[in-house]
């Protein structure tokens, strides 16, 4: 039912649409003008006491932000329009609300309008409040500039980076309770920049709260979780392989309950195990991809397949996955990488990457003459393990700590880095310290080569190391020298926080080449989204 308010509406709508389609934000004047017109509209409508009109909600955000999504067009006989969905916010703003369903019977329209307005005001106020809390974070995190956020897509932030939001915590607790997995408590004071992440203590393992002959969780998964949280299985590849091994045991011991289908029930059985492993240690990108693959394979099992056959098929799939994505990929990458290693090279590596170690050992076997400088950092000191493996092979190595990197770089000819994940915008996520090495190498004009299998390519986008990271046990930073432990009582000092970051993100400008498998060989960092797209098309 058209009314005068609506006739004004479409013009304004066109304007707004035009502005949005051009990808521009509405300037302040435009916004003001729109607001005035809106008020006019409202007054007209109230006078006429007509059906509800849409209120185009322009939330004024202090930070530059994309305009909020528009509502569906007004014209029809809709009783109430759903209130506007707040736009997909930049990462700093916590989870957005879902559109409120709009079926309210018999109340009078004016009352309903007033109610709705009051509700929207309340939401706006609460949002401002939340923004105040996370304002610090927002100031530091880079602004994502999504140019064309027109559609009302509700982007939800993953729960593991919203630990300071009590609602999210409550939801997580409920979910874990439903799955009968214990909740692991956070430990110690968290540095404010990272208070949105979990921080656990190694001395309080999750197995404290699990019954000892674990019945809810498969014993292989409990063992795996324990090994993750104690650091016995570390490294992206090792964690994935161990995960798939545990899943093999689970599938072997699985029996389909009556009246259930294997394809659906097994996936449901795996969900609590994955939550448990997540509680022990946040899942890595490679593990996430492996889990996606398994879930897909399980749900693709035809329903008439017998249980034994299905199980053997799944076990076979897992074997193939490991073989293709990890073992053969390592071989292919080594082959490409060895071309880049020439005689007389001085290669710098950081920490302990299983792939880089493999490459260097292979190159040494193919009689390339080179020497290696191993850079290491506290508190993990993983470089010692890399050093051991290389020296055992016979490669001549030098060992320095990361503080000496700029002293050592003038003699380095190449830098080989491993990666935990390659993000969709070309950033490399790796052990903390990697971006530092890449930066200094860039300053010295030393080529940086990142070696990464394709199964670690991840669709996430990240431009900084704050938003999504992992906090390790802060007590690892405490060291005892000459019998004295100065930081023993760090928790009692109120202004002291210990921060033990695990990952950091390296921009693609510092990376010269990515060596990967799947026949791609060497690609620039920015081709990662292309590879992802091609992979998705294949699957």
């Amino acid at each position, binding site marked *: 039912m058209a009314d005068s308010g609506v006739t004004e509406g479409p013009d304004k709508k066109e304007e707004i649409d035009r502005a949005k389609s051009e990808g521009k934000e509405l300037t302040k004047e435009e916004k003001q003008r729109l607001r005035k017109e809106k008020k006019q509209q409202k007054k007209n409508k109230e006078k006429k006491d007509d059906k509800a009109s849409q209120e185009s909600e322009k939330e004024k955000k202090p930070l530059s932000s994309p305009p909020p999504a528009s509502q569906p067009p007004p014209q029809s006989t809709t009783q109430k329009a759903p209130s506007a969905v707040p736009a997909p916010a930049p990462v700093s703003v916590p989870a957005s609300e879902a559109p409120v369903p709009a079926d309210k019977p018999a109340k009078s329209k004016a009352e309903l309008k007033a109610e709705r307005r009051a509700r929207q005001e309340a939401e706006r106020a609460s949002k401002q409040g939340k923004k105040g809390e996370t304002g610090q974070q927002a100031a530091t995190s880079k602004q994502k500039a999504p140019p064309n956020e027109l559609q009302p897509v509700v982007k939800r932030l993953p729960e593991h980076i919203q630990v300071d939001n009590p609602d999210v915590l409550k939801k997580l607790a409920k979910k874990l309770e439903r799955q009968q997995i214990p909740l692991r408590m956070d430990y110690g004071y968290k540095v404010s920049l990272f208070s949105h992440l979990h921080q656990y203590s190694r001395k309080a*393992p999750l*197995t*404290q709260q*699990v*019954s*000892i*002959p*674990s*019945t809810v969780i498969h*014993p292989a998964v*409990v*063992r795996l979780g*324990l*090994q993750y949280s*104690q*650091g*016995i*299985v*570390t*490294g992206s*590849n*090792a*964690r994935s*392989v*161990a995960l*798939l*091994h545990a899943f*093999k*045991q689970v599938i*072997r011991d699985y029996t389909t309950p009556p009246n259930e289908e294997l394809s659906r029930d097994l996936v449901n059985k795996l969900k609590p195990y994955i939550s448990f492993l997540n509680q022990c240690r946040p899942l890595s990108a490679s593990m996430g991809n492996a889990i996606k693959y398994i879930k897909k394979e399980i749900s693709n099992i035809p329903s008439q397949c017998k249980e034994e056959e299905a199980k053997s098929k799944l076990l076979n799939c897992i074997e193939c996955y*490991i073989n293709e994505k*990890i*073992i053969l990929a390592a071989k292919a990458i080594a082959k490409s990488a060895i071309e880049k290693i020439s005689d007389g090279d001085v290669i710098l590596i950081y*920490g*302990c990457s*299983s792939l880089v170690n493999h490459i260097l050992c292979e190159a040494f076997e193919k009689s390339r003459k080179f020497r290696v400088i191993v850079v290491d950092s506290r508190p993990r000191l*993983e470089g*010692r*393990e*890399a050093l*051991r493996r290389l*020296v*055992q092979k016979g490669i001549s190595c030098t060992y320095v700590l990361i503080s000496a990197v700029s002293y050592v770089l003038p003699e380095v000819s190449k830098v080989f880095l491993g990666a935990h994940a390659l993000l969709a915008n070309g950033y490399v996520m790796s052990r903390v310290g990697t971006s530092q090495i890449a930066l200094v190498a860039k300053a010295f004009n030393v080529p940086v080569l990142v070696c990464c299998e394709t199964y670690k390519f991840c669709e996430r986008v990240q431009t900084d190391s704050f938003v999504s990271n992992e906090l390790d046990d802060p007590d690892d930073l405490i060291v005892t020298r000459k019998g004295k432990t100065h930081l023993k009582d760090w928790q009692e000092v109120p202004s002291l926080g210990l921060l033990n970051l695990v990952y950091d993100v390296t921009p693609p400008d510092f990376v010269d080449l990515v060596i990967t498998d799947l026949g791609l060989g060497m690609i620039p960092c920015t081709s990662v989204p292309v590879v992802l797209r091609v992979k998705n098309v294949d699957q």
Partner: protein
Amino acid sequence: MELQAVLMAAGGGSRMTDLTYNTPKPMLPVGNKPLMWYPLNLLERVGFEEVIVITTKEVQKMMSTDPKMKVDVKMKLDVVCIQEDGDMGTADALRHIQQKIKTDILVMSCDLITDVALHEVVDLFRAHNATLAMLMSKAHEFTETVPGQKGKKKTAEQRDFVGVDQSGKRLLFMANEADLEDGLSVRKSIMRKHPRMHIKTGLVDAHLYCLKKAVVDFLTENKSISSIRGELVPYLVRKQFSKTTDSPKMKDDAEDQTQKKNDSSTNHELLISSRDEPLLQLAQERSCWNDHHGDMSEAYHGGKLRCYVHIMDQGLCYRVNTLAAFIEANRLAPKLFEEPAVHPSAVISERCQMGSDSIIGALCQVADKTSIKRSTIGNSTTVKEKVKVTNSIIMHGVTIEEGCNIQGSVICSNAVIGRGADLKYCLVGNGQRIEPEERGGELAYQTEQPN
């Protein structure tokens, strides 16, 4: 299923015959609960639902009539009876129930009273894929005078030498003083792999072991091993460092040569690997973790057999196998639980002085003008007027007539203490009658032991 619990309750209590000649050790009352209730309670609290109990027929009969066991123990007890003649060692008992064992086992002894966080031991077993994980605790000196013994008789306790690595978790060496005739010798292979070893002597073994199923299978093959503690554990600890036929390492001491033949034949049984061994191997290779630093070998030195120990330094851990331990346990066991010291059904007169650290059992009758301090009174006991009980343990069904003075003593079940008796540090056996006006100090009253 991950772990099966096995409770060894067939032991004779050979070191406290004064108490056990009539009541079998597992049913001795400690804090008014039978001794085997404590390990069962620990297992129940941790989450076990079934326990295999290896015991004698006598104990089984007593178990079925004891109210505490029937009501409080909610788990399913699978009782396996063995002969009472006592020739069966703990390892023999495991061999006996080999059919029932389907997974890794957790073996406990019935005389263990502890409040350990069991997950510490089991986590070592799980995380490192260990063959053996055990519990030990710092030994406490028993300060109470042991009744029934004239003078302090210190039996020459054979010390245990336990060698652990730097982290204090890996078990490297275990030997009893009795086996070491002329000094403690440590193999070179151990020193090469673990240059720093801490050797401890003041530890008490809690007899709590997590064993892999392969060990039980190994026991069925090797019938010569009869005791877990005495033979199996030292054997496993030694085997960690023995040469395997497929490892091309240098030869060690000459004694290894003779052992080698035996070792290699039994090696493959103990190291039964999982079906996905190559995957586990791959995961370990790719993982950048090592349990030691400073030499060129991989994690665990490539050894597949690993023994771990968790050493408790705080908390209760008692093995009630001597009289002194029994008394100490009675003193401390009530502190483990939040139960009221006085049983609701006991009848205590108002003019009785009761210390807060005393326990009164069910259906007791305590008359006026009595004083009970630091003592444990069992069920259905009658204490008449003007009795002073200090530092003593009174078991069930005892009658104490008026005017008695009992100090530091242990009175077993169904005994009768005549009026006016004065007992200091005495041990009164089952069903004994103490004459009135008896003056006793450091004596043990018992009938001749039935043959």
